[in-house]
């Protein structure tokens, strides 16, 4: 996995979909790693028309992280890209409820029917069409 990470250094990834993309949140869920890009598990389940139990049983390698809704809101609302009042409307700033998140990965992207296009520093597309 380390080599893979190394290869993906400085590579721009473009996710293409024929359906509107699920909202993606740049969140730091633990002190041991920096911010990562996450989808809400509930959004993913809705899109896949799948229960949480089936999802967890089928995709055992996809890790589900949890974060308190208040912390999620605090971090997400700092983003200048979430400047529209509607974007975080459904979240409660003081809630202690836990939210389930799944990190964006090539596997998840493919699962959602999107395809990935990668561009390295020499401007060459390096990998395509994983859907």
């Amino acid at each position, binding site marked *: 996995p380390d080599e893979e990470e190394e290869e*993906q250094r400085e590579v721009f990834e473009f996710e293409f979909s024929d359906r509107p993309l699920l909202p993606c949140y740049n969140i730091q869920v633990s002190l041991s790693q920096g911010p990562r890009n996450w989808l809400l598990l509930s959004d993913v389940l809705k899109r896949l028309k799948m229960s949480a139990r089936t999802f967890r049983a089928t995709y055992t390698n996809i890790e589900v992280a949890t974060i308190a809704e208040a912390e999620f809101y605090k971090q997400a609302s700092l983003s200048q890209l979430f400047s529209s009042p509607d974007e975080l409307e459904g979240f409660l700033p003081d809630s202690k409820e836990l939210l389930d998140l799944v990190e964006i990965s090539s596997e998840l992207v493919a699962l959602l029917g999107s395809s990935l296009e990668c561009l390295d520093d020499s401007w060459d597309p390096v990998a395509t069409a994983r859907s």
Partner: protein
Amino acid sequence: FDHSKAHFYRYDEQVSLCLERQSSSSSSGKDKSKLTLQQKFVRCSARAEVRHLRRVLCHRLSVEKSQVQMLFNNESLPDHMTMKQLWLSHWFGKAQPLVLHYTIKDKRTR
């Protein structure tokens, strides 16, 4: 934590785009569908630049880079503008996705 990977583009804030083709009246029906993205919703790093988007579009649509132009409100976008700059200057306060247009120039008319 491990700072060595913190600069990866994949960990950047992501922008959500919708790329609509601004079609010219000269394109025929067949060309039109061939030169139009079937997957028009795109997500990428906020640090990606217009030139990167153009490059990817060229690859997707199998056309040359000089044929693709990116537009916002009918205005051509500079190649080195990042998605974050674009968002802050043209889309701040609006909901995702940011809607951009692209045109494909006919090779013969270059």
